[in-house]
């Protein structure tokens, strides 16, 4: 069971759609504890990605993901821009040269992506950032690989873990990003970056559910 180049392209297009549909919701979350731009930032970035996305001929999956990363870096700005860019660049480098990948490859790619985000943003789990969605998702993928779960099951577990991580950001007091300026007042609100990260992994689980 493997994810192909075509599936990757579909995932990115579907995620761009999810972001467009949730633009206001993400911005609303960011208005509570940030500066009301996360939805707009992500939407601007992924609309540019759709324009730049290679059609799949003469490129491999690594190249596709790196193109997404470079586009986000030059179109998004803010903290979300470099961080999301890093997710795609690191995952792309991890899967470089391949035309398809399996669950173990994806676990490694997302682990590299998460390490990149941590290197850049210096956030730890519990700081109320996207790291809180990424970290449990990586763990779930590794566990699923070890237990020999199917691709579909493993992806579903990782999306569920990301969702739990996202919900767990609600009571946290932010220690990184703009929300940290609010101190105690940041508690009681869900982190926008963790929310969009959950959407990214949830879209992967849905789009790649029936990959064969």
């Amino acid at each position: 069971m493997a994810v192909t180049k075509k599936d990757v392209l579909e995932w990115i297009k579907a995620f761009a759609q999810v972001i467009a549909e949730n633009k206001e919701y993400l911005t609303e979350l960011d208005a509570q504890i940030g500066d009301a731009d996360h939805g707009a930032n992500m939407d601007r970035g992924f609309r540019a990605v759709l324009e730049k996305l290679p059609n799949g001929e003469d490129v491999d999956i690594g190249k596709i993901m790196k193109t997404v990363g470079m586009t986000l870096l030059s179109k998004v700005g803010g903290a979300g821009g470099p961080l999301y860019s890093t997710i795609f660049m690191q995952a792309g480098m991890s899967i470089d040269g391949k035309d398809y990948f399996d669950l173990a490859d994806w676990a490694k790619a997302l682990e590299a992506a998460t390490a990149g985000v941590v290197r850049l943003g210096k956030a730890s789990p519990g700081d109320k950032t996207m790291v809180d969605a990424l970290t449990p998702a990586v763990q779930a993928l590794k566990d699923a690989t070890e237990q020999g779960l199917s691709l579909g099951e493993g992806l579903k577990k990782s999306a569920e873990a990301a969702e739990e991580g996202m919900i767990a950001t609600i009571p946290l007091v932010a220690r990184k990003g703009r929300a940290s300026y609010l101190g105690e007042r940041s508690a009681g609100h869900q982190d926008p970056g963790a929310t969009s990260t959950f959407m990214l992994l949830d879209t992967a689980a849905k789009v790649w559910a029936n990959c064969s």
Partner: protein
Amino acid sequence: MKKLINNPENVVLEELKGIELAHPDLVKVHYDPDFIVRADAPVKGKVALVSGGGSGHEPMHGGFVGMGMLDAACPGAVFTSPTPDQMLEATKAVDGGAGVLHIVKNYTGDVMNFEMAADLAKAEGIDVEAVVVDDDVAVKDSTWTAGRRGVGLTVLMEKLVGAAAEEGRSLKEVADLARKINGQGRSMGMALTSCVVPHVGKPTFDLPEDEMEIGIGIHGEPGRTRMKVEPADAVTEMLLNPVIEDLPFESGDEVLLFVNSMGGTPLIELYIVYRKAVEMLEAKGIKVVRNLIGPYITSLEMAGASITMLKMDDDLIKLWDAPVKTAGMRWGV
């Protein structure tokens, strides 16, 4: 919400077109990637100053490009830091061979994007130094958090460091001066109303008619505490005392006092705040030797004000008085 705009998507682009038409003697505007450079860039042999940040803080930074201040400014989307490609191209456009100083406000996004741009510029053989401004005493500093925000002191730094670069000081001297200024300046702000980000169309936070936010930043983010509105003198105390205590500023100090409007508060009210602040400082034996009063670092149409104090010395006074010719600040020319 009523706004004098056309399409929220085009706000920054149409602003840049306006700046280009209004100030051809001062600046050139480059599009895609977007940045503003002084008309005579690159100035050979002079250290170049590049800053940037989200739009919505006008006149900062674009209005501070010109003789005696910035060589380039990179505007991001409203309240969103610009991207590394803008910063890299601006850096290349203004490098006159003496190196480039990046003035970065301490926000996660700004710091990350400027770091990437500096690495790319260095890879192209340009000497780049970066200075991070973090003067907001409303934010509790700790190694675990993103640290303090860069606010009002940024304006003063851009003027003072710009004058030093114009004098022909080296990149190292200019960068050290910027760090010294960051070490001896502090700010705090408050809001009477929220602001409306164009693409959002409604206020970032709801603030009842009789309440105010103390300890706000410059991006419409809520502050640290919310309370009932108080008279100007009481609010001035709430802003100035934490600023004085943090450094601390002491009897005998000479300072520059900067009372800034967040965009919606008129000059008449800024002067009321200034008057109270000077009274308070005189009572403590702190002497105001220079001042700046007006909207210089704003948060769209937010009503509110911030106070910045910078400890001055002879060198800083000389640099402050040096000629400057930009759209947002102009004297001595």
